[in-house]
């Protein structure tokens, strides 16, 4: 094998450097995606906390949606639907989402959501059971 000429040697070095830059860029892309997961986990955890606060303090929920209605971000029928919606259920769904969708990485938000789920799952299950019993026993009462 003949030795590389100076020009060819430089070219080979360039190719190695360029491949290295591309590899670093790919790694940064991956890291960005991981950070995005953590950011989203935090956002949904906070959504869960918001619904928990609504569950504990229904006045807060009313205040929140009144504000949205005033700003015309939602319509009257949407307002009614959202007010009627169960906050405990929504909190449960948000925490579950963090655990199901935003891991790996196992961020602090995921851990905190798991803890929250442990706390509220009995409450949530009791609510689901009561609703299921209602489904099986009610006979289509009138809606307003």
């Amino acid at each position, binding site marked *: 094998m003949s030795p590389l000429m100076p020009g060819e040697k430089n070219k080979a070095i*360039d190719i190695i*450097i*360029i491949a290295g*830059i*591309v590899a*670093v*860029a790919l790694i*940064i*892309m*991956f890291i*960005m*995606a*991981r950070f*995005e*997961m953590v*950011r*989203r986990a935090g*956002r949904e955890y906070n959504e869960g906390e918001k619904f928990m606060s609504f569950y504990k303090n229904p006045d807060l929920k009313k205040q929140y949606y009144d504000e*949205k209605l005033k700003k015309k*971000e*939602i319509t009257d*029928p*949407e307002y009614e*639907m*959202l007010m009627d*919606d*169960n906050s405990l*259920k*929504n909190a449960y*769904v948000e925490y579950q*989402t963090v655990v*199901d*969708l*935003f*891991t*790996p*990485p196992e961020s602090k938000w995921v851990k905190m959501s798991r803890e929250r789920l442990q706390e509220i799952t009995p409450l949530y299950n009791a609510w*689901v059971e009561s*609703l*299921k019993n*209602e*489904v*099986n*026993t*009610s*006979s*289509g*009462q*009138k*809606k*307003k």
Partner: protein
Amino acid sequence: MLNNNIRKTMLICASVLILWLLLIIKIAPAYIAGDSPETIMAFNFLGIQHPPGYALDTLIGKIFLLIPVGNLMFRSAIMAMFFNFMTALTIFKIVLIVFKDNAKKSGIYYAPIIAAIFYLFSNSVFIQGITAKGSVYTIHCFLIALIFLLLLEIKQGAKFLYLASFLFGLSLGNHWQSSIVLLPAMALGVLLSGQKVKLKTWLKCFVFFLIGISIFAYLLLRKTTLIWSNVADLNNLIWFLSRAPYAEFEHRHAFSIIDSFRLFKYYFSNIFPDQYPVFLAYILFPGAVLLAWKLPKYGYIFITAFICYLAGILLVSTEVGQEWVDKQFIIYIIFAAIFISSFFNWLFNLIKYNKTTMSILFVVIFPLLYINLPDYSRYFVSYDYVNNLTSGLPEGCLFLTEGDINFFGAYYKQLINKNDINTIAVALLNFQWYREQIHRNSFESILIPGKAKASNLADDIKNLMSANKDKEIYTSNFSNNDLLSYNKVPMGIKNKILIDREQPGSDPYLPYKLYSYRGIFENKIKYDDFSKMLVLSTYERCLALLGDNLSKKGDFDQALFFYNHAHLFFKEENLATNIAICYLQKSNAVKSEEYLNEAIRLNPKFVPAYYYKAAVSYMLLKDPVKTKENLLKVIELDKNNREAKSLLNKLNGGT
């Protein structure tokens, strides 16, 4: 001191990283309505997707699922977006070659940047880049762009032609239809290159093509958890690749000239302008003309590709009345982006510019394009829908489904999340391979009486339910309720089948209280068509059906409760008219007219809306002029409407 190539690479990588950050923050965290759950399952089990199988997509998808970031759905979406970037970079290079002698030296990179950005920020390209199923199309765009790039370079040596041949073969293993339609443009590329290709070179190309196309062997070899069909031999492979299982649907193509023109018109007036804000999409037309005028060789190649591909979509692939589905075919946007960059290149040559003016131009255009892209980062609509659909299904139950998101969503819960349910796609009961697959994947033994294609679908379903009546049986919402021989009771967006069981007394609205509705009543975004047609409209239809039953019983107050809830999910003319009828029965003319006007807004040719407007005018408003106007409109739209004619006759003093 860094040399030029290294500096360029660093600049490109930095730009890519900024754009990557801007786009991944908008990616959906879960699957989008449609085939995406199927695609992800195929990646996971290295299975076979629906015809034509998408072998290449599945193999690459498996690699992306190994990246430890988020759930399988997000990883699949990352893959789709990654290939959008690869395509954008390839387009950058293509445009760099095209305008190398036709651009000012100081601004040689401006047109390529414009092309890459216009591709990446096109609405349809973006939507395909955030969903698992979209990966099929984003990979394909990359392969096609790469083939065209290689064809522009064939003067540099035969190796470019070999690689193009290999990639063409490979692309057939992904979405062969999209590659075949571009053959004329590729042939033109070779012809106009001025390069004489020897027979020996063509033979070598053929060998490379065969190596590429050998990816089809994957379809013959795989037999696993999730396969669409049993491709046992070459005959079966041809049957599968030709999409013969879809023959029933695919004969409805627009072959007539009038239909074709109508579809082209629809595309240019609806789908094109939607790609970019403020009609920027239409720049492609002067751009194409300028390219053909200034650089005819490139102009002819890319215009041929653009026309061939659009013709392929509109004349062969589109079912009449299903135009909205075809936004997923995005390859033409490669050429549209090149045309748009051609227009800007002409503009740059025309005006005196410096770095400041160019910076201002980019600062104006890019945010405009970026804001136009919907933010799917909190898109949970389909994910919540599937959870809602499968919530409350008892262990070991039989769940009969119809529709992509119902079947694949529930199947995803069964196979990936290990929910103990037995999901059946009723439309596939006709196939023996599918019956065998049910046995392989079911948690409990499911009895499937009879043989495939032995009877009609309604009988197949009846026999299946009857043979498994010891299990609880549920169905998703069926488009044709005649398929169900047994009574059913609605349980939210699914139904419980009653065989030798008493109908439970139940409040049909209670299951809806269990559901999650994120992004439907607040934090809404501009949803894609699949989400609207497959998810939001299903909530609407299920609630509206409850309203219909009550309306038939004359309980208009209760009917309105369900209709109004349905109306929150999806607005369509039938529902709006039904709400109007309830208000008509309650003698509320104002409300009735309001909803009838909405029905007409949604579908200006919807005859019942005009008919009931006439009824409101006649019965409640006592306005004969308005009544006549509406009856005349009914007759204009439906010349054979005897009822309207007879009423009009009566109003005019006839008998």
